[in-house]
C-alpha cells in the first residue's frame, strides 16, 4: 500500500530510487544515443575537444610562460592528466545543472524519483570521460611514459570527481527549476574554473602557505589526485589540501542533495 500525504517523510526514498533503476539506465542510454545522432563526426567531438585544449595549454603555459612540470613529466601529459578530471567535472556540472529543465515535460507528466534525471545526465559525462581516458593512455604510450601502481586508485578519484561536481549540480538544477537565470551562470563558472583550477599548470607552483586555501576548491584535490594516480611518483599529493578538498566536496554533496530532496516534491508545480 502506498500512502500519499502532505507531511510524509520519504522513508522509502532510497528503495524507490532502486526500483526505478531501469528508468535510470534507459534515460542515460537515451542521452548518450541522442548525443551522437545527427552529428557528422559523432564521437570524434569527444576526441577533438581535449586534444585541442591540451595543445593550447601546452603552448601557453609550457612554452610561452614556461611553467615547470612535475619532475620529468612531459608537459602535454601533465596538462592532459589535469584536463581529464576537469572535463569530467565541468561536463557533469553543466549537463546535470540543466537536466531538470531539459526534462520538464517528463517531470510534469510522470512520477519517478527526480534524482534520476541529473544522475543520468552525469552518466553521459562519464562516457565522454572514458573516451578521453583512452586517448590519454594513447598519448602516454606515444611519449613512452608508463603509469605506476598508483593507477589502481584512479576509480576512487573518479568517484571523488563525480561527487565534487554532482553536489553543486544538484543544488543548481533544483534552483534552476525556480529561477531560470541560474543557468546563465554555469558557462561563466566553468570558464572561470578552468583558469582557477590547476588544469594548465601543476599545483606545485602555488606558494606553499597558500596551498591549503587553494585546495578549498574541490577541483584542486581532484586534479592533484588524478595526477598522483596517473603520473606515478613524479606528482606528489599534498594531504591537508586533499582532505580540505574532500571536506568541501562532501559538504557540497550533502547540501546539494538535501536541497534537492526538499524541493523535489514541488518541481512539478514550478517547472
Amino acid at each position, binding site marked *: *500500500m*502506498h*500512502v*500519499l*500525504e*502532505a507531511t510524509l517523510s520519504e522513508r522509502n526514498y532510497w528503495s524507490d530510487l532502486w526500483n526505478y533503476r*531501469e*528508468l535510470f539506465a*534507459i*534515460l542515460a542510454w*537515451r542521452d548518450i*544515443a*541522442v548525443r551522437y*545522432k*545527427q552529428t557528422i563526426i559523432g564521437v570524434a567531438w569527444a576526441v577533438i575537444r581535449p586534444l585541442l585544449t591540451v595543445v593550447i595549454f601546452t603552448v601557453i603555459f609550457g612554452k610561452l610562460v614556461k611553467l615547470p612540470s612535475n619532475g620529468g613529466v612531459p608537459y602535454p601529459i601533465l596538462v592532459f592528466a589535469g584536463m581529464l578530471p576537469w572535463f569530467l567535472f565541468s561536463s557533469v556540472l553543466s549537463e546535470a545543472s540543466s537536466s531538470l529543465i531539459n526534462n520538464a*515535460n*517528463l*517531470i*510534469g*507528466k*510522470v*512520477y*519517478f524519483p527526480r534524482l534520476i534525471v541529473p544522475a543520468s545526465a552525469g552518466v553521459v559525462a562519464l562516457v565522454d570521460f572514458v573516451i578521453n581516458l583512452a586517448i590519454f593512455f594513447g598519448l602516454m604510450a606515444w611519449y613512452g611514459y608508463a603509469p605506476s601502481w598508483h593507477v589502481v586508485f584512479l576509480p576512487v578519484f573518479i568517484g571523488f570527481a563525480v561527487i565534487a561536481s554532482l553536489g553543486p549540480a544538484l543544488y543548481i538544477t533544483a534552483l534552476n527549476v*525556480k*529561477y531560470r537565470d541560474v543557468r546563465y551562470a554555469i558557462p561563466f563558472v566553468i570558464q572561470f574554473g578552468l583558469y582557477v583550477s590547476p588544469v594548465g599548470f601543476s599545483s606545485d607552483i602555488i606558494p606553499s602557505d597558500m596551498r591549503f586555501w587553494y585546495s578549498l576548491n574541490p577541483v584542486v584535490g581532484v586534479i592533484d589526485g588524478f595526477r598522483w594516480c596517473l603520473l606515478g611518483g613524479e606528482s606528489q599529493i599534498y594531504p591537508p589540501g586533499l582532505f580540505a578538498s574532500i571536506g568541501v566536496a562532501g559538504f557540497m554533496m550533502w547540501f546539494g542533495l538535501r*536541497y534537492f530532496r*526538499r*524541493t523535489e*516534491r*514541488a518541481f*512539478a*508545480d*514550478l517547472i
Partner: protein
Amino acid sequence: MTDIVIRADRLGKRYLIGHKAKPERYTALRDVLTRSASRFLRGAFDVALGRQLIAGDELEEFWALKEVSFELERGDVVGIVGRNGAGKSTLLKVLSRITDPTCGRVEIRGRLASLLEVGTGFHPELTGRENIYLNGAILGMKRIEIDRKFDEIVAFAEVEKFLDTPVKRYSSGMYVRLAFAVAAHLEPEILVVDEVLAVGDAEFQKKCLGKMKDVAGQGRTVLFVSHNLAAVKALCNRGLLLANGRVVLDGSVDAVVKQYLNTSDAAHSISFVATATRPAITAIAVNGEALVNRDLIVDIQFASPRPLSTAVGGIVLRADTGEPVWGSNSRFHPSRSRVNGMSHGVLRCEVRRLPIRPGRYSLSAWLGDWHEDYDARIDVLNFAIGEDDAHRLLPPASAVGHLDWPAEWGTATSEAFHLPEPCRAIL
C-alpha cells in the same frame, strides 16, 4: 476488509498566485521606491528560504482541490467530469504522485500507472523501436515486459515498416498511434488516464476505446478524465463530478453526466425578471443531455400580464464565429398545440439530429405573435452541440461552413461532361 484500492481523505492542494496591486491615481516616486524595495526584500527572503518566488504585489491562495474524499473499489471504472479548472487534472497529478497534496491523504493499494499525455518522453531523434522502450520505461514497464509485448505494440500501432525510422519523420497519426499503443499495453492494477483519447482518426479512436474497455473489463480500476461524455458514458460505471476543486457528486455515471450537463454549465438555462407591462420571456432552458446527440430541445417560458390568444416562439443558433447558422419559429414550423389564452406557459421547440458541425453555439430566443414582437433575448445561452470532432480532421468551419452533411465520392466517366467535339477528338 473491503476491496478498496484508492481512498482519498479530505485531500487538498493549494497554489499561491500573485496579483498586481491596484494602481494608485498618482504615482509618487516614493511609493514606487518603497514598493520596489519591499518586493526586492520579499524576493530575497523567499530565495534565502528556498520558497517559491511569485510575481505580483499581493499573494492569494488558490485551492485547486479542497476536501476531496472518495473511495474506489477494485474494478471501478470512474469517469471524472467537470469544467475546465474544476481540479480534474490536479487530482490526477496528486494521485499519480507528480505533485504532493497540501493536506489530506490518499491510500493507494496496487501498482498505479498514469497516462496524462500520449507519448510522454518520446524523443524525436530516436527510432520507433527505441521510443517504445523509452516510453515504456517512463510509464513504468519493466524491460522484459516490453520485450514480451513488443510485437503486440507494433501491430497495434501499425508501424511495422517504420520501426527503425526516427519518429520525427513519422506522420502525426503514426506518432500518436505508436504512443498510444505503448500506453495501451500497460498492465497496472490502477490506471489513471487524462483526456488522451481525443487523438487520432475516428477508426483509431474506436480501437483505443475498445482497448480501454478491455482494460476495464479485466477487473482493473480505471480513473478516466474526459470531456468526451459519450466515451465516459460508454466506459465508466461510476462518475465523480468536480466543481471548483470539490466533489459535487459521486455516483452512477449517468447521474453524474446528467448533473454536469444541467448544473455545472450554467449557460444551459437562464431566467429573466418579467416586466409587468407586456408579454415577456421569463426563462430559456436547453436540454443539455440531448445536445450531446445534436438534438436541440429548447423551452421558452413566458409570462404575460394578459391572456395571449397566440404566442409565436423563435430561436436562432449562432456559431461561435458569429454568423447565424440555423433558426426556426412557430410561424414557419407551426406549433402542434396552441397557446389558447394562457397568461404564462412554456413553448417547447424540439429538433432532432441537427446537421451542424459540433462546436459551441449561442442561442437567441424571441417571443411575439403574428403581428408584433414581444421580447427578444439575443445570445443569452452558450453551449456545445455534439461531441468534440477535432479528431475528424475536417477543414475548419470558417472555411467550409457549419453544415455537417455527408457526401458520397467516387469516380465517374468523363462522358458526364459532354465535351464539345474538338475536345473529344483530342481526348
